[in-house]
């Protein structure tokens, strides 16, 4: 069986971690062809060719494919679909934008956020904010799937797949890109970081979020936030962890001033070790914490930062 995997390409660069995790999931299904599409994608294609388990790379470069616009990207994938039994991608916001569109154009269902592969037709996926896991068998001829990256290990490097250049499909011309607002940061990327320190409403202000950032920097960690912290303007939207934010599963997750609503737990409860710091001993976050500290965060966090 043949699998087409849409690589995550940002401004011409391959998002290696997300793509390599999806390769691990896809290898179980058949020979993997990676599609690197973008206004510039050749370098991303070369990088993808080195991922273990990739059989072939297709590079499509065209201005219309820049900025991951859904309509031209979906049109390109649909034009290639005939050769593949599975069309897959890491479950990033870009893929979640594109893949359901691809599925509908092919008249098949999409399987979003699959967390496990049972066989070529059967997949596991979390539902109800991760409070249940459903095993579904697809009856469609072509399977369109996004894989939840936090549950697959990244494939290694050492491959040397052939790279082929292809053209874009006709641009339906339905939308145009205006701008990206991306905060530059030296910290690790949230979904691939080994350690994540997250702050919640308990942190109280944007200024005091510096406490969270200091602890994160001491640990070499990415910074996360609860929805309440983002809604209150303490942290930017791309830091949100949870059902409707990012799903993370680091070695260590430190939740500070976060109560532990199910929608937040949905995004972090598969972390290896969870630490919770909260002044309310009844806070539900303690039910998933390996190590809980009942304390005022304004004392405990600086003390922890110093002690590490």
């Amino acid at each position, binding site marked *: 069986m043949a699998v087409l995997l849409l690589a995550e390409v940002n401004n011409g660069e391959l998002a290696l971690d997300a793509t390599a995790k999806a390769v691990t999931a896809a290898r179980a299904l058949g020979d993997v062809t990676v599609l690197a599409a973008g206004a510039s994608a050749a370098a991303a294609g070369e990088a993808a060719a080195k991922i273990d388990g990739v059989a072939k790379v297709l590079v499509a470069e065209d201005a219309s494919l820049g900025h991951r616009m859904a309509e031209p990207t979906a049109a390109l994938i649909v034009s290639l679909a005939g050769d593949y039994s599975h069309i897959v991608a890491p479950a990033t916001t870009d893929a979640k934008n594109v893949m359901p569109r691809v599925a509908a154009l092919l008249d098949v269902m999409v399987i979003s956020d699959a967390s496990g592969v049972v066989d070529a037709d059967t997949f596991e996926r979390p539902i109800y904010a991760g409070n249940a896991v459903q095993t579904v068998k697809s009856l469609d001829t072509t399977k369109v799937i996004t894989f939840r990256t936090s549950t697959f290990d990244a494939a290694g490097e050492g491959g040397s797949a052939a790279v082929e250049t292809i053209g874009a499909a006709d641009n339906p011309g339905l939308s145009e890109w205006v701008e990206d*607002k991306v905060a530059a940061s030296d910290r690790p990327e949230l979904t691939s970081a080994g350690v994540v320190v997250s702050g919640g409403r308990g942190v109280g202000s944007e200024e005091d979020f510096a406490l969270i950032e200091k602890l994160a920097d001491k640990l070499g960690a990415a910074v996360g936030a609860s929805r309440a912290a983002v809604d209150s303007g303490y942290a930017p939207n791309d830091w949100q962890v949870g059902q409707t934010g990012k799903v993370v599963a680091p070695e260590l997750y430190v939740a500070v001033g976060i109560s532990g609503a199910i929608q937040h737990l949905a995004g972090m409860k598969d972390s290896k070790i969870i630490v919770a710091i909260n002044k309310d001993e009844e806070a539900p976050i303690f039910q998933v914490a390996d*190590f809980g500290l009942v304390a005022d965060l304004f004392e405990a966090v600086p003390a922890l930062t110093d002690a590490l």
Partner: protein
Amino acid sequence: MKVLVPVKRVIDYNVKVRVKADGSGVDLANVKMSMNPFDEIAVEEAIRLKEADKADEVVVVSIGVKQAQETLRTALAMGADRAILVNAADDVHTDIEPLAVAKILKAIVDEEQPGLVLAGKQAIDNDMNATGQMLSALLGWSQGTFASELDIDGDKAVVTREVDGGLQTIKVNMPAIVTVDLRLNEPRYASLPNIMKAKKKPLDEKTAADYGVDTSPRLEVVKTTEPATRAPGIIVGSVDELVSKLKEAGAV
């Protein structure tokens, strides 16, 4: 311009779901159901467009069991003008897949000719995050997903989207499908007089067959299980104890 808003009846977000012991699904009998929180935001946005004279009618649609009437009445009480209920299932445990929902919505769009469809980004039960994109594909319309800002300007809409890297702004041709994220607005509560008024607003009932759509699932549910549970943890007495436990566990 007419705005169409699909609203889904889902388990209330505060309810802790229980997986049925026989693995057949999640227990939805006698649990509190509400409008999908994202759809409340979509309804709110549609009403605000009407209040700003950018829309002249807000039509809400729900596809599912008869009880979805309540969800539609909630939307009418918030300020929507009329509702369409598509009866597509008898059992509250039956859910219609996004592809079939999108096909029914396409037929409704063909009939109603809205200039904008505002849907939720995802439904909090199945978390598929698919219906809006699928509808957009079937109609050949533009899509602006995960919107945290929406500005309609004649035959274009400027949509700011919440994406992994931060925010992306795009301009889409109208008519368009926009799926809404949590930070687009804060939905209003319906007032008691408006709840009373909503009872008199028109609610049309249809069936999936009226639209010639086959709703049989493409994904067969093999089983539904509880997620793995975590081993219980401990409460530490001090920052120092926390640090030594983390060191013992090799976490720092």
